[in-house]
């Protein structure tokens, strides 16, 4: 093994992979000095994102979202339930356990006003839809919350509310495809729900004075200060989540994160619209 060179580091003597494992932070800092990351992305760029709608045929709405290698599958199943007394003409969204256990909870889907719960109502005071959202992580490589939120939003945009009718006992049942002539359907046809102010998010990692957008799992484990900004399509701040971390965030850093998120929202909106229009052509 050669002697360390004048600057004191072993970079010229040690193989690249070994250096990456032994001194991960220094490996990254060498790249950050050149404003680039080991996977050749500039600091502010997110990884390649794809959305596939309708991945689960048996669910009422589903979507598979991939950001880089991180893959999340979201599926929505609709059931009829009686609405609560306080809100007799609103439906409900239920988040099954995995969806509820993200550090930044996906319950912001409910508070963000993306879905008007009155659209989920069937018969005021008697029946309303309950949409159960379930999310599965198929591959985890950093930015889990971003991918989960994107897949949930895409699943809601793919959701079709099934046709139901009232049977003789006054209970709601699913209509068969042919439609029985003696039963009047409660809702005429399968319809999609309107989504307004859709939330999109971007996770950034802060390290000294650098801001890295969309970190991989390796970057998240080395640099511990993570900031997640969720903006909706009308540029309102739904959430700014920074749980601790060694680096303090000053106003300029926060403004940069929010600016990066604004760009990302435009990119994601385009990707989502392309996916939806792709489905409609079929």
């Amino acid at each position, binding site marked *: 093994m050669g002697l360390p060179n004048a600057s004191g580091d072993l970079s010229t003597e040690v193989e690249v992979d070994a250096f990456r494992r032994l001194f991960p932070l220094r490996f990254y800092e060498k790249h950050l000095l050149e404003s680039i990351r080991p996977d050749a992305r500039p600091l502010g760029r997110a990884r390649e994102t794809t959305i596939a709608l309708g991945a689960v045929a048996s669910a009422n709405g589903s979507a598979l979202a991939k950001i880089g290698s991180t893959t999340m599958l979201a599926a929505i199943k609709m059931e009829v*339930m009686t609405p609560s*007394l306080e809100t007799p003409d609103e439906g409900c969204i239920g988040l099954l356990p995995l969806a509820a256990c993200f*550090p930044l909870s996906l319950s912001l889907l409910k508070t963000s006003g993306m879905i008007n719960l009155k659209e989920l109502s069937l018969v005021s005071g008697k029946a309303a839809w309950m949409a159960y959202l379930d999310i599965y992580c198929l591959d985890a490589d950093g930015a889990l919350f971003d991918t989960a939120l994107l897949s949930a939003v895409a699943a809601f945009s793919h959701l079709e509310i099934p046709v139901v009718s009232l049977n003789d006992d006054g209970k709601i049942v699913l209509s068969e495809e042919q439609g029985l002539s003696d039963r009047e359907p409660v809702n005429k046809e399968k319809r999609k729900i309107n989504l307004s102010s859709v939330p999109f998010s971007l996770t950034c990692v802060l390290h000294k004075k650098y801001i890295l957008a969309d970190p991989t799992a390796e970057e998240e484990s080395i640099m511990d200060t993570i900031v997640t900004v969720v903006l909706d399509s009308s540029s*309102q*701040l739904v*959430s700014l989540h*920074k749980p601790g971390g060694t680096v*303090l965030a000053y106003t300029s850093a926060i403004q940069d994160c929010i600016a990066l998120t604004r760009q990302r929202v435009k990119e994601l909106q385009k990707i989502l619209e392309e996916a939806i229009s792709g489905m409609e052509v079929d």
Partner: protein
Amino acid sequence: MEVDREDGRSQNQLRPLACSRNILHRAHGSASWSQGDTKVLAAVYGPKAGTKKNENPEKACIEVFWKPKTGQIGDFLISILIVLAFEVWYAGNFQNILHWCLGKPEKEYEMILKRTLESICILTVNPNTTTSIIVQVVNDDGAVSFMHFPCYCCTVSFLCSLVIVCSPPTRTVLIVCRYVMHLLDDIVLLPSAINAACMALVDAGIPMKHLAVAICCCVAKSGYVILDPTKLEEQKMKAFAYLVFPNSVHSVLPEGSLRVEGEPIENGIITSVTHGIMSVDDYFYCLERGRAASVKLSDFLRRKLQQQSTDSSKAG
């Protein structure tokens, strides 16, 4: 714009603060912190040898346990589940159970506290050790301050008996239960807990870079921002943010050398958690207000810590 708050405070005024150190004699460090009626007790045990399974052994590890006011998280849930079991048996409404079991805030509080405290402690001083911090909520603000454990037990058993006696089990009973459950979550708990945990860490002598000072800012529907809301004020708000700043620095060095990117060190945020929708400008306004308040809180902390350390040196 002058805003009238119910208890007569101005927009940026905090509730009366009180704190004390070294209350629990068996804990290595302890502190209590109260803001108005909200009171939180924090105890620190450690450093103890060994780290948890998935933690890095080259650094010290911090674990946080949050004990809500009713003692055990399970208690309340079990009693509510009994009520719901009758609802299920009678009406077959399985869906309602899920409403209750999801989204407990304790886990989120524990995670945020852990990450915040990890960033202020110097973790490399005692590697391969675990420091445990236990936060006990002594009192919640608002209408539920009379509800200590025996009283709450009676209420819940009364509600259960209502369910058994009444037929059909009325949905109003469940709505009351749900209302009670929400009342028990005061939103100023997390900032008080962070402040108390910080004082307790100082009391235990854990080495830290600086203290953490936490504040809660609310944005009202009409756009004004108030600090340190009570439970009643919180219901009229559209969004709120918890902000944690480092404490203000008193230094002999000239002020210019302490600035980072043109801002004083105490302007940086350690932690920020928001709930609800607000505009980006509202958020920056909250940050400004929060910083101004954190200066006052830091002065209060500094005075309290200096006072108590001179008292104990007199005794010794």
